[in-house]
């Protein structure tokens, strides 16, 4: 594919013929607006998402996905400013107890269950910590019941447990929160389908294309091998990275255990744009 000198180096091809043609047509004209180009083009594009890591949209093993999965392939889109930017949050938007699930909803005592610390780092695909990013978590209580109007499971609601928290990573990309270990619960996939104990995570990174929602599981849980939602992930080594490890060093002696869960978001590739000033 011929490239005009004024066009940025196209490093990850969109794959679609039409897209490539459009790209060429756009890059053909010279440097008339070279200043504008320098100021405006995307600095660092994201690595193409590795779709082998993630569950595909359509996974009959998890029945609900069948009617909620696009059937036409996703349209490949190279990064523009719309993709490499994203919302930024500041710590003063959160309350002081937002990250403490033991106390952020409690009124007359602590929630029932095994108290734990969950902590880890948010990194990008180059292994670089992502500081100042919003991490949100939600989970069932110790009995496996969510504080949600649509959850009618027999386990009791815990009056002192809300089941959600949020925090912003520190300068090293580190987050931590205190909570109780959630219980397993059944769901209507098959008649006898059970979810392993898990905590839901929502993470932003610095760009909207890094947006990720996932679930953290607990080392040693025998239900992991039977779960239909985990089974949507084709790569078993990828599944392993969703399992938090017991972290005795982070435990509080005589008080509570700790689990370590690192989250990796997509990383950028620093591209050479011939028409861009580097480091500007």
């Amino acid at each position, binding site marked *: 594919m011929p490239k005009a000198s004024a066009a940025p180096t196209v490093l990850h091809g969109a794959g679609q013929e*039409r897209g490539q043609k459009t790209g060429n047509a756009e890059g053909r004209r010279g440097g008339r607006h070279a200043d504008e180009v320098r100021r405006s083009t995307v600095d660092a594009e994201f690595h193409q998402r590795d779709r082998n*890591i993630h569950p595909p949209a359509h996974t009959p093993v998890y029945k609900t996905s069948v009617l909620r999965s696009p059937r036409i392939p996703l349209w490949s889109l190279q990064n523009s400013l719309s993709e490499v930017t994203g919302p930024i949050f500041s710590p003063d938007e959160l309350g002081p107890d937002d990250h403490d699930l033991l106390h952020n909803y409690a009124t007359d005592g602590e929630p029932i269950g095994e108290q734990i610390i969950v902590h880890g780092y948010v990194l990008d695909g180059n292994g670089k910590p992502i500081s100042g990013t919003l991490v949100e978590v*939600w989970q069932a209580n110790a009995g496996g019941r*969510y504080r949600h109007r649509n959850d009618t499971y027999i386990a009791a609601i815990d009056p002192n447990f809300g089941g959600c928290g949020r925090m912003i990573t520190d300068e090293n990309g580190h987050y931590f929160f205190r909570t109780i270990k959630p219980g397993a619960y059944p769901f209507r996939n098959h008649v006898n389908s059970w979810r392993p104990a898990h905590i839901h995570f929502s993470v932003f990174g610095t760009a909207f294309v890094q947006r990720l929602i996932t679930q953290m599981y607990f080392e040693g849980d025998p239900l992991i091998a039977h779960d239909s939602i985990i089974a949507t992930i084709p790569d078993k080594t990828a599944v392993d990275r969703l399992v938090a490890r017991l972290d005795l060093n982070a435990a509080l002696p005589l008080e509570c255990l700790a689990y370590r869960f690192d989250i990796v978001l997509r990383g950028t590739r620093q591209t050479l744009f011939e028409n861009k000033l580097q480091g500007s």
Partner: protein
Amino acid sequence: MRSMPFGGSYVPETPSQTAGPYVHIGLIPKQAGFDIFENNFGGDIAGPRVPGERITIKGRVFDGAGLATRDVLVETWQANAAGRYNHSADRQQGALDKSFRGWARTGTDFATGVYTIRTIKPGAVIGRKGRKRMAPHINFWIASRGINIGLATRMYFADEEAANAADPVLNIIEQPERRKTLIAPRSERDGNVTYTFDIYLQGERETVFFDA
């Protein structure tokens, strides 16, 4: 100065998992029926002093059986009225308004299936090649039970016909018919402007989703 296109080591991304049926608890707790945080993120994002045309976006998210889903998380990300994103990677010259983050979060309603976002209409953003502007658009990201990995799409404005016809992203979609799935019709009532943006997860009218 020249640099290598790759640098350092590559660490594989954490895999996605469905947001599940109780996504509201963590991300829109008020919709789950309880009050926990003092400050809640929401779908009404333009304060009174933010410049730009006030708009409401309403829509539903349909599954493959034609049912309007009632448990989907909807997030949007957009530039301000000058076409500038509130983010350090955007060095365009348009005015930056720090009070307008440009990000909204809501859910499809438990009863009606309708989601509602109140914001301002964004301006045109410079394109990837830095010369051609993209037509005004709002980036959407949705997640829910049954969606294994969040789905990204864009909403364009039906009244921006000329800009849409020249938009570099709409134009890479091979089938012109499918481009229409991203264009929201505009309606006005009592001076209030509403764009209707329905999303079809699958079926004959399946929305174009992007792998960006």
